[in-house]
């Protein structure tokens, strides 16, 4: 195997080390990674073992809350013409049920599982950005609770979980209910993206040495693909919510056909996010299944490379199926056919995974304890949902079943079988890893069978009511249509499911004991690193991984790891550290100093949530104050990053020394910045698609752009900004005196040029008489320019940050990361702005 970084992999043979470990080493490690000691420290904690538990707990809280809403709906629908819920309340409840389940439970729950499990699974001490993970959690919790509470004030959204305009335009939804959805969900998605960045960099850069891609745990593969899909898909919903909020608040007509807008644009943007979302939820759950089934069957996963390929293929093909939710909207027939074909093709990789699970069960000796039951039960339900999925992928059938209860049945089979059952399997399987006691096996079996029977009783009859013509989202129905009995049965099934969840909550209260001095441990005989003896520091020493199933195939590994015989067995200088490795071969690169807990990320999350929530109630001044405070807190949080190190290298074990600091593409910060920029680029790309789409709807309404002569100044300034940004990292690395000041000066110049270019371009369009509220052209041009301008403004804040760091002596030639990352951002800003300006100036040309 060729080395990726020049590291000599023969050095792995030095492990496990044999010499005695220094006295007090373990105590120093425990001291460095000690848990919270006061109530405040439980809030400011950043360790994944704590934040992960909070995160899973919060997601399950939202699952229970959304489940209660489902029971209210089923009570209303149990009999025809019931008056249990008023129509308006029913609309709010079904909207909140779908929204909370999809946005506040499903995605956060799997992300939470990743935060909790990945460091241990990868042999890392923690994820690389623990404060970002904690920020994402607090933002999600505060935003989610405030969003849910809107229900108690009659302010909850009521336009369905996909919020189609024109129903959600101000004409038909004049209150602030829809604004809660738009701002709340947009904000929560930002938190999901923050978590995804953490997961991608964590999986690619903090794996145990030797954990090459073929030895990467299947759950980590799933989480990596899941996080990449979030980065590509979620910008679409962020853009969609932004555009609809701009239309509602400022009258920019993106979706108003009278001014050249088109409600179909919302459907394209929403479903470009919405359908991959199903696979975003499914893939981590499938990763959990592919981990749990081999462990419970006591045999390796059959077709491991095929399962990895199937997950990759699902990740790709799921982006080609968004319009299968739009077969009845009058799209061109040939386009519908492409989406229909992709919808059927996506079942191929899903089938590969299911057959691999069946083959694994057949090849091993499956133990049907609670995790095994949930895994197999989930597989059965998911396959049933997948089969109805192939049915609705066929256009003629979809025309009949669209917006009927058949679809409700299909989506619940897919989501409950593909995510909820695997999640419960995961909870039962991995809970002994973080609790002193496992959950009750006896209760677990009862819970499984109640849930399995309840699910089928609730949703199987919905196929029939749907085929008999019962539409979705109706708050009641007339008697005598043959819908009465299946609805009553569905309600009974829903309550049976609810009883199962209630029993699970009680069992959690009885048995779940986290954060204790010891855990129940590997009671299922799992083969992954997560079952190594651990504490808040994760593993005592980071092992060399030589197998996909290290605990099954590397004999004595657990004892050697616990004895400190591998990498980083201590906490040098009392610092929290983890090992950063290369993305493909996992070769050691450098030691990452992990920041200690502080309150700034918590305050940052509170004020960021405050900004969005206050904006909803249109108290703009207060929102601005909250926004400014959020920016201040985030800058304070960043202030202590990129600090000097006492020594240049660290002995990570067996006399192997690696640097304590690297910059550029090897550093974890560079990777995170690139991912952030991909998110920005996706929003911009989709805004460009919206611009072209709206032009194609009403080209007759579009006017000519400003004169070409006015193009030179903004583009020229942006070229200057880009060149300054590219030159700054080179400048800071020169050994001359004043190198740091020169780099800071170049960055400030780049910021100034980018901001000036944005202002000039905006003024040029304004001078043509085009106004954002006048037409879809105005709305989309100013939206694109605003997006590019926002990046320039953030660049301005970064320029201020650089100046402050220079003044306080926090920039140095030997620590160029700050300059590198800001340069990268500014170079992207310049390139993005040039792209935006050229698009709006040159397409469609001189107007029609």
């Amino acid at each position, binding site marked *: *195997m060729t080395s990726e970084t020049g590291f000599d992999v023969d050095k792995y043979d030095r492990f496990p080390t044999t010499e005695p470990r220094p006295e007090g080493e373990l105590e120093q490690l425990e001291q460095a990674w000690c848990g919270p000691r006061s109530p405040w420290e439980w809030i400011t904690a950043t360790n994944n073992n704590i934040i992960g538990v909070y995160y899973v707990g919060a997601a399950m809280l939202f699952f229970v809350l959304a489940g209660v809403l489902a029971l209210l709906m089923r009570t209303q629908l149990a009999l025809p013409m019931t008056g249990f819920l008023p129509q308006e309340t029913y609309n709010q409840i079904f909207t909140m049920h779908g929204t909370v389940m999809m946005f506040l439970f499903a995605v956060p729950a799997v992300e939470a599982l990743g935060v909790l499990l990945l460091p241990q699974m990868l042999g890392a001490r923690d994820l690389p950005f623990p404060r970002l993970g904690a920020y994402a959690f607090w933002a999600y919790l505060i935003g989610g609770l405030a969003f849910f509470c809107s229900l108690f004030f009659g302010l909850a959204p009521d336009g369905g979980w996909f919020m189609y305009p024109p129903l959600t335009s101000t004409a038909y939804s004049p209150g602030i209910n829809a604004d809660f959805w738009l701002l709340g969900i947009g904000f929560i998605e930002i938190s999901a993206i923050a978590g995804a960045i953490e997961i991608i960099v964590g999986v690619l850069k903090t794996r145990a040495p030797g954990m*090459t891609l*073929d030895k990467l745990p299947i759950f980590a593969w799933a989480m990596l693909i899941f996080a990449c899909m979030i980065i590509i898909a979620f910008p679409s919903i962020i853009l969609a919510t932004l555009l609809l909020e701009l239309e509602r608040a400022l009258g920019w007509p993106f979706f108003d056909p009278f001014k050249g807008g088109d409600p179909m644009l919302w459907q394209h943007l929403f479903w470009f996010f919405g359908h991959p979302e199903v696979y975003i939820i499914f893939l981590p759950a499938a990763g959990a299944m592919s981990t749990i089934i081999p462990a419970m069957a006591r045999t390796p996963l059959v077709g491991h490379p095929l399962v990895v390929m199937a997950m*990759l293929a699902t990740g*790709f093909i799921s982006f080609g199926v968004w319009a299968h939710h739009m077969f009845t909207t009058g799209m061109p027939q*040939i*386009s519908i056919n*492409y989406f229909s*074909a992709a919808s059927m093709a996506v079942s*191929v990789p899903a089938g590969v995974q299911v057959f691999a699970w069946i083959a694994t069960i057949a090849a091993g000796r499956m133990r049907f304890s609670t995790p095994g039951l949930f895994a197999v039960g989930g597989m059965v339900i998911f396959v049933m949902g997948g089969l109805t999925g192939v049915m609705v992928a066929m256009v003629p059938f979809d025309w009949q079943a669209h917006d009927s209860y058949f679809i409700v049945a299909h989506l619940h089979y897919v989501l409950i079988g593909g995510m909820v059952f695997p999640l419960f399997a995961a909870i039962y399987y991995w809970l002994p890893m973080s609790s002193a006691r496992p959950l009750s096996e006896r209760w677990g079996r009862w819970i499984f069978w109640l849930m399995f029977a309840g699910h089928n009783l609730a949703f199987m009859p919905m196929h029939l009511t749907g085929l008999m013509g019962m539409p979705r989202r109706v708050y009641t129905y007339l008697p005598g249509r043959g819908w009465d009995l299946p609805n009553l049965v569905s309600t009974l099934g829903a309550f049976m499911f609810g009883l199962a969840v209630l029993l699970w909550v009680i069992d959690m209260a009885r048995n779940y004991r986290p954060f204790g001095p010891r855990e129940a441990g590997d009671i299922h005989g799992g083969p992954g690193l997560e079952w190594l003896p651990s504490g808040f520091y994760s593993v005592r020493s980071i092992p060399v991984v030589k197998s996909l199933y290290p605990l099954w195939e590397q004999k004595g590994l657990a004892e050697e790891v616990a004895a400190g015989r591998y990498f980083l067995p201590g906490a040098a200088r009392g610092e929290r550290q983890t090992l950063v490795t290369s993305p493909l071969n996992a070769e050691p690169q450098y030691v990452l100093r992990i920041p200690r807990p502080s309150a700034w990320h918590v305050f940052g999350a509170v004020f960021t949530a405050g900004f969005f929530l206050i904006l909803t109630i249109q108290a703009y001044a207060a929102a601005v104050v909250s926004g400014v405070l959020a920016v201040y807190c985030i800058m304070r949080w960043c202030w202590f990053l990129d600090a000097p190190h006492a020594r240049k290298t660290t002995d990570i074990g067996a006399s192997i020394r690696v640097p304590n600091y690297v910059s550029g593409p090897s550093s974890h910060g560079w990777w995170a910045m690139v991912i952030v920029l991909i998110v920005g680029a996706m929003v911009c790309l989709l805004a460009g698609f919206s611009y072209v789409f709206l032009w194609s709807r009403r080209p007759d309404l579009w006017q000519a752009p400003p004169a070409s002569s006015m193009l030179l100044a903004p583009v020229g300034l942006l070229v200057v900004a880009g060149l300054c940004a590219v030159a700054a990292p080179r400048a800071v690395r020169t050994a001359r005196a004043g190198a740091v000041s020169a780099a800071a000066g170049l960055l400030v110049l780049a910021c100034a040029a980018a901001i000036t270019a944005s202002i000039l371009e905006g003024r040029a369009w304004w001078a043509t008489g085009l106004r954002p509220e006048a037409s879809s052209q105005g709305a989309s041009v100013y939206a694109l320019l605003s997006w590019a301008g926002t990046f320039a403004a953030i660049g301005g804040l970064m320029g201020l940050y650089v100046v402050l760091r220079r003044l306080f002596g926090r920039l140095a030639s030997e620590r160029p990361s700050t300059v590198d990352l800001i340069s990268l951002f500014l170079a992207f800003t310049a390139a993005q702005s040039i792209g935006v300006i050229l698009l709006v100036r040159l397409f469609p040309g001189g107007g029609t």
Partner: protein
Amino acid sequence: MTGGLLIWAVHFVGVYLISSVADVWSSSEAVSARWTGLAFSMGCLLCIIALAVWLGKGWREASGQEAWESRVGLTGALVAGISVLWQTAPLAF
């Protein structure tokens, strides 16, 4: 490793764009649009075949992680080929 799937993505965006542009200018059912789509699809299929041959060679010669990556890439190319073929079918009818 993801080469085949990337070609699938390019194919999907390509045929969708061709039909959308055709829909704006004349009709997505236009014969010229169908032939353009077919030619583009054939090009993508050829790329997938070339990739599969190259990966197959690599698989035979490599060992360990590199062989594993070739294997995942090869099966990914197979799924991408099936998907491209399947999505080209509507153009033929």
